[in-house]
């Protein structure tokens, strides 16, 4: 028997599956699938749907520059992690923001059109936030796998076309 979780797994696998496809892949009817997806969206379980893009494969002069930034912060009685994260997450340049364990506090991902733009964003917008004590920026040089998808093209089917 299928579970609601399976619908989540299927959408994580391919957000472009139609409700009709998902119904055929599970024990749910099409209307049940639509209803469950609505519920996931309403409850904030599904926050959005995005394409996984390999920018290297995009034939265009437009460059996408991405960086991960380690942030260290200092807290006081009036300021919590949530307060700081609110301020950082609001910038459209920030594509992800996570609180992490270890040597630094926040793990930030930033995207821009050039290295210059990303550098300026870090130095002008992020570093000056009073609670932030240190930033370490790592530019992403090559991406091999994003969101569970490998970017190599070595997965050709080498099976015989018909076999017993």
């Amino acid at each position, binding site marked *: 028997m299928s579970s609601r979780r399976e619908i989540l797994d299927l959408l994580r696998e391919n957000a472009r599956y139609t409700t009709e496809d998902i*119904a055929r*892949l599970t024990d749910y009817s099409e209307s049940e699938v639509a209803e469950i997806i609505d519920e996931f969206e309403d409850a904030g379980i599904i926050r959005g749907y995005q394409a996984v893009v390999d920018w290297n494969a995009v034939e265009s002069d437009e460059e996408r520059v991405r960086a991960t930034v380690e942030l260290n912060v200092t807290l006081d009685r009036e300021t919590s992690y949530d307060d700081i994260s609110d301020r950082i997450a609001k910038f459209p340049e920030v594509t992800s923001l996570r609180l992490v364990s270890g040597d630094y506090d926040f793990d930030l991902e930033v995207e821009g059109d050039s290295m210059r733009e990303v550098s300026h964003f870090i130095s002008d917008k992020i570093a000056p936030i009073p609670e932030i004590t240190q930033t370490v920026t790592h530019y992403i040089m090559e991406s091999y796998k994003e969101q569970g998808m490998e970017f190599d093209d070595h997965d050709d*089917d080498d099976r015989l*076309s*018909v*076999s*017993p």
Partner: protein
Amino acid sequence: MTFEPADRVDSVPPSGIRRFFELAEEMDDIISLGVGEPDFSAPWAAREAAIASLERGQTSYTANRGKRELRERIADYEAAAHNLQYDPDEEILVTAGASEGLDLAFRALLNPGDSIAIAQPCYVSYVPGATFAGIDVVDVPTRAADEFKLTREVLESSGAAEADALVYCYPNNPTGATMTAEEMADVAAFCRENDLLVFADEIYADLTYEHDHTSIATLPGMRERTVVFNGFSKAFAMTGFRLGYAMAPPEAIEAMNRIHQYSMLSAPTTAQHAAIEALDNCRDEVTEMAAQYDRRRKYVLTRFEEMGLDCFPASGAFYAFPECPWDDAGEFAESLLQEKRVAVVPGTAFGEGGSGHLRVSYATGLDDLKEAMARIESFLN
């Protein structure tokens, strides 16, 4: 003196699947639902273990019966997964695929002139394997009305009671049929009553979607007369590693090993290293692949229903076995291939019991599967 095939070879026709293979190979852009192996690659950890073993220079023969560490793990795995208890020292033989194991059993445990009942339709190697061993074949055609399960009725009506042994594969290739514990108990009773040995090909045991697999060897009075065959090809997606195993009482394994030690020496060493890792650390991948097959199974069965193609609810392996809407399934498959570039295999390739049906493998990515179903639908209209 010139080369002429020996009589035992001459009496076996080339595989019925070959013609389709040759046709399909000549074409570009086909979507093949004719493949009897997983579309997934072997789990990375298993591949990595194979590479590491090569780096360490572990390229020698192993013990004839296979590495002891592997046999121990197989014993543990079969106990946990299928409730089978076999001693790794005396009751397990690691083979080059389950196919080698079956061939060994035919030759080591039956005499020329003995007879073997073969549940049909079946994997392509059973009848030739029996013929090469000089064993007479008793066809046991399972019926579409029984969803291709083996029943006491078909065993009785086909004369299987007179045979010395019975060979079958459940979950089944090519039909996708499975047997419940109760249904298997009927077969077991028949085998006990008529004193049949059983060669149980359980290569798809971990790919069941409606109920758990029951091994006949777990049923009362059956362990002592059964050889169970399994391997890493299907559930672990390791077909090219060529690694299987046979489990049976010591005297059967001893006899099979007598041939194995002279013909094969030992199963591929690199594959054995990969298999150890597969059993230690790749169970989650097996579960995930099975979940994927199950979704595709539902998809295919639903699509067949939508296009009015009769198909019983196949519940194991990765095959559906719809009825062919044309009288001649071979002609249908050929036209579908020529006109729509979709390969399926006519049931007759798996013996007469498969006539009037098509084997549709859903070991294919969902995008291709969707496209193939759309093409079949437009072909039917």
